[in-house]
């Protein structure tokens, strides 16, 4: 054994052990989390892992993502080159090429050489981006775009590539290596004049530089945001195969705990998520609460969970208690209550995260603790909670008033075995004076198309959406069980709703309660009726310029972007114009997640921000919505902006009703 080999073997052994130990420590921290089954359906999981981790689907959704895509694949390929390098250090003279046919060996040399240039280029682009034109969302109150950590990592990669080239170039100049490395050869040409002792020196220094930086890099990974290099791929494998935004059920029995107040109450996957965050800032960029000056930043929530886990985890693992509270003030590692209550559960964060982190459900888990174990929530919610429990609607209006809007339609009670569709009117559709018009419009459309439908009338209960998003799972659970029993008793198989919140709750949340029926949002049913020619349009609905605002619970939570647009196009003869932020990137109206029932204390108003976005050229005459909450928020926003008499808000059903009148 040479001295060189002996020293390297020793260093390698120490750093490999230290690396493995760090990984083990981190995984042990993850294991203190509550159990959650993310092991089913391996085929589906592999598929997800392939498209999100290897094909970088979400990463590529933004232009800059291409740089990451290249770097990722360069890394994957160079993993082989670095493996060869390490083995060569341990077993002098080891060459991968020796085990391969000559052509393949040369091909690999060529590939590694080119890929290293690409990697170096990507690093320079990344460095320039962070230093000279950082997007606003890279930084926040706990980190900067050009943070020491980010720069160190980039510098390490750049050093690795440079050392790699110098080493190969020196070897080529020494005549030890073939000419299948064009970039290295070009550098070798520059070294030509040097005496061979100098070349050997260059080779030696480069080799050791490469070796040391490589081992350092490896050891740095688990201790930095670059942990994601190790965790992102498995995190995509363990993605939520169901609706990631549908919160899990809780069991209500003596001795149970509810929600999360200490980090070990999160599931292991929540904790694994926190170690996977790349700090890319995309969720921060889209979050409506963050954008309007609320103290909520989904990225910081994930970061706080990680900081809290690292701080409290070791003690909690040994059965002790943590020292850093998870809920409290706004310091790193702690989430403040106002942040928890600021979330509109719009799902922008979960649907943009390139590594499939589920931020929003983590916020709801904190709410669950506050509501159910502490009864600690914004004052305004007390009335809501009591009205819901007492009268099954947010306003506390007598259930006998539920059918008032349909006075002129006669008796429209759902008849089991006779009515095809249940029209689940929803609380807003039944009680809110503006949204009652939408109920009438939808009823008119259903009648015009000859659909057989009925309602539950005063037997209809609230679906419980707001309660679930607000963390009042106990009351939601009761309401869900009552509703599901009612649906089963009435033998309901098809439901149409005019509210995306009812739609989503009946369709996705109630599935957890064994209700598997066809649930359609009115945009979907109207689209079907138009397509099948069952609904005959008699004239063009004249609305002037239309702009369409996506509802989060229809769009992002249920991937329904096309139907409402198709309905508007059919009714008016033209496609609606779009907000700058639309579809997956849409911007919430501000009312989801129970925010409808709360005051907006800090920052600017979300609905105002949204209507301002609508007021661009050509100015819209009609702002179209597909959700009762959006209706209220957009109308209020336009009023606040002083343009309510210029732009009106209409539901897609109202627009369609005017095409059949």
């Amino acid at each position, binding site marked *: 054994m040479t001295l060189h080999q002996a020293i390297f073997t020793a260093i390698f052994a120490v750093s490999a052990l230290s690396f493995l130990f760090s990984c083990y420590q981190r995984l042990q921290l993850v294991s203190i989390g509550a159990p959650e089954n993310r092991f089913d359906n391996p085929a589906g999981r592999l598929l997800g892992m392939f498209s999100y981790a290897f094909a970088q689907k979400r990463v590529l959704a933004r232009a800059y993502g291409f740089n990451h895509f290249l770097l990722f694949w360069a890394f994957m390929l160079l993993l082989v080159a670095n493996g060869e390098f390490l083995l060569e250090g341990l077993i002098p003279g080891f060459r991968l090429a020796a085990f391969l046919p000559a052509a393949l060996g040369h091909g690999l040399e060529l590939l590694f050489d080119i890929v290293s240039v690409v990697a170096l280029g990507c690093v320079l682009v990344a460095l320039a981006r962070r230093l000279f034109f950082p997007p606003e969302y890279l930084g926040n109150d706990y980190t900067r775009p050009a943070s020491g950590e980010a720069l160190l990592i980039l510098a390490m990669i750049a050093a690795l590539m440079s050392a790699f080239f110098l080493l190969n170039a020196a070897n080529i100049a020494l005549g030890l290596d073939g000419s299948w490395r064009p970039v290295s050869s070009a550098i070798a040409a520059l070294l030509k004049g040097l005496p061979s002792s100098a070349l050997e020196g260059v080779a030696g220094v480069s080799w050791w530089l490469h070796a040391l930086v490589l081992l350092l890099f490896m050891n740095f990974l688990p201790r930095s945001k670059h942990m994601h290099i190790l965790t992102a791929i498995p995190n995509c494998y363990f993605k939520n195969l169901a609706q990631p935004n549908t919160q899990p059920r809780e069991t209500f*029995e003596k001795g149970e705990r509810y929600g999360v107040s200490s980090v070990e109450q999160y599931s292991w996957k929540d904790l694994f998520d926190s170690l996977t965050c790349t700090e890319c800032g995309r969720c921060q960029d889209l979050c409506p609460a963050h954008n309007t000056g609320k103290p909520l930043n989904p990225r910081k929530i994930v970061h706080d969970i990680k900081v809290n886990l690292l701080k409290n985890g070791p003690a909690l693992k040994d059965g002790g208690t943590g020292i850093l509270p998870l809920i409290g003030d706004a310091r790193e590692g702690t989430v403040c209550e106002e942040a928890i209550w600021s979330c509109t559960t719009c799902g922008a964060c979960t649907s943009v995260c390139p590594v499939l982190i589920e931020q929003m459900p983590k916020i709801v888990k904190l709410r669950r603790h506050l509501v159910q174990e502490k009864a600690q929530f914004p004052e305004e919610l007390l009335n809501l909670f009591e009205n819901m429990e007492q009268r099954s609607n947010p306003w506390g209006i007598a259930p006998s008033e539920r059918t008032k809007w349909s006075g002129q339609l006669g008796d429209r009670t759902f008849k089991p075995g006779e009515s095809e569709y249940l029209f689940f009117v929803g609380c807003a559709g039944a009680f809110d004076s503006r949204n009652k018009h939408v109920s009438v419009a939808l009823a008119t459309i259903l009648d015009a198309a000859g659909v057989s439908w009925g309602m539950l009338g005063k037997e209809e209960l609230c679906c419980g959406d707001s309660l679930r998003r607000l963390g009042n799972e106990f009351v939601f659970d009761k309401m869900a069980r009552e509703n599901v029993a009612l649906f089963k008793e009435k033998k309901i198989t098809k439901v149409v709703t005019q509210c995306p919140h009812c739609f989503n709750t009946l369709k996705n949340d109630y599935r957890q309660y064994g209700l598997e029926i066809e649930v359609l949002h009115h945009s979907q049913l109207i689209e079907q009726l138009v397509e099948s020619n069952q609904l005959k349009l008699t004239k063009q609905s004249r609305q002037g310029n239309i702009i369409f605002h996506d509802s989060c619970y229809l769009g992002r939570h249920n991937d329904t972007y096309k139907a409402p647009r198709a309905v508007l196009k059919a009714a008016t003869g033209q496609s609606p114009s779009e907000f700058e932020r639309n579809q997956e990137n849409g911007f919430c109206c501000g009312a989801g997640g129970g925010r409808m029932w709360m005051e907006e204390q800090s920052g600017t108003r979300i609905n105002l921000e949204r209507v301002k976005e609508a007021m661009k050229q050509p100015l819209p005459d009609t702002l179209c919505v597909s959700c009762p909450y959006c209706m209220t928020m957009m109308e209020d926003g336009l009023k606040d902006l002083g343009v309510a008499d210029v732009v009106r808000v209409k539901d897609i059903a109202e627009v369609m009703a005017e095409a059949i009148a």
Partner: protein
Amino acid sequence: MLVISCIKQVPDTTQVKIDPVTNTLIRDGIPFIINPYDSHALEESLRLKDRYNVRTVALSMGPPNTVATLRKACALGVDEAILLSDRCFGGADTLATSKVLSAAIERLDKQEKVGIVFCGKQTIDGDTAQVGPGIASRLGFSQLTLVDRIESIDFLRKTIKVRRKLEGRHEIVEAPLPVMITVVRELNRPRYPIVPMRIESQDMEIKVWDNSVLKLDAETVGLKGSPTWVSKIFSPERDQGEIIGNGINDPIGTASLLIDKLLSKDLLTI
């Protein structure tokens, strides 16, 4: 020291209708709630428990289904809930109601001295505001009505100082314990039950005291012991409403029509 809250289960008045033929309440399918003022009475007893570690009892007279309301009190944290229920207690007016409640309070007082009895200012169905004062005079307790703030309690001197909310002014008064206090809504904000307590309350025993326990003369309680008779209940006639103006299509015109209308009826002064 024992702190008692008297709570009555009442029909949810937003949903109460009166049968136009029989002139009685249509109680079918109407949900019952805890009388809103009483939830403030209950809350105040719980606050004293939190602060001074006193024992709290919730007391209600009513039919057997009143158990549901008492269970809610348990979920909020009372130590004990007692239902006073007997066929012969039925149909009671304020006189008979306060008699039964007083008898129960006396019985409790024998086990542990009663310091404070909280009642609501009034109920939303009977509306008399007499039961609290009735209890106080029967038991010889100090009587503090319309309380919107407890200023202080002196356990050594056995006195309590409270603020009463009167029309246009407040009054701060002190009285010796034991005391009967009727409360107004401004007193506090009732708490929301936490889930572990709700689940706990499912198994809590709710004692039922019938007349074999209270041993009152059956002629002096319930319908028989009630000198008040309700001769007639009716909903006042309301004029048919009318829709004026052109709604959201002409908000300004509609608003001025409305103002004219209010002015013409002398309902607005300028």
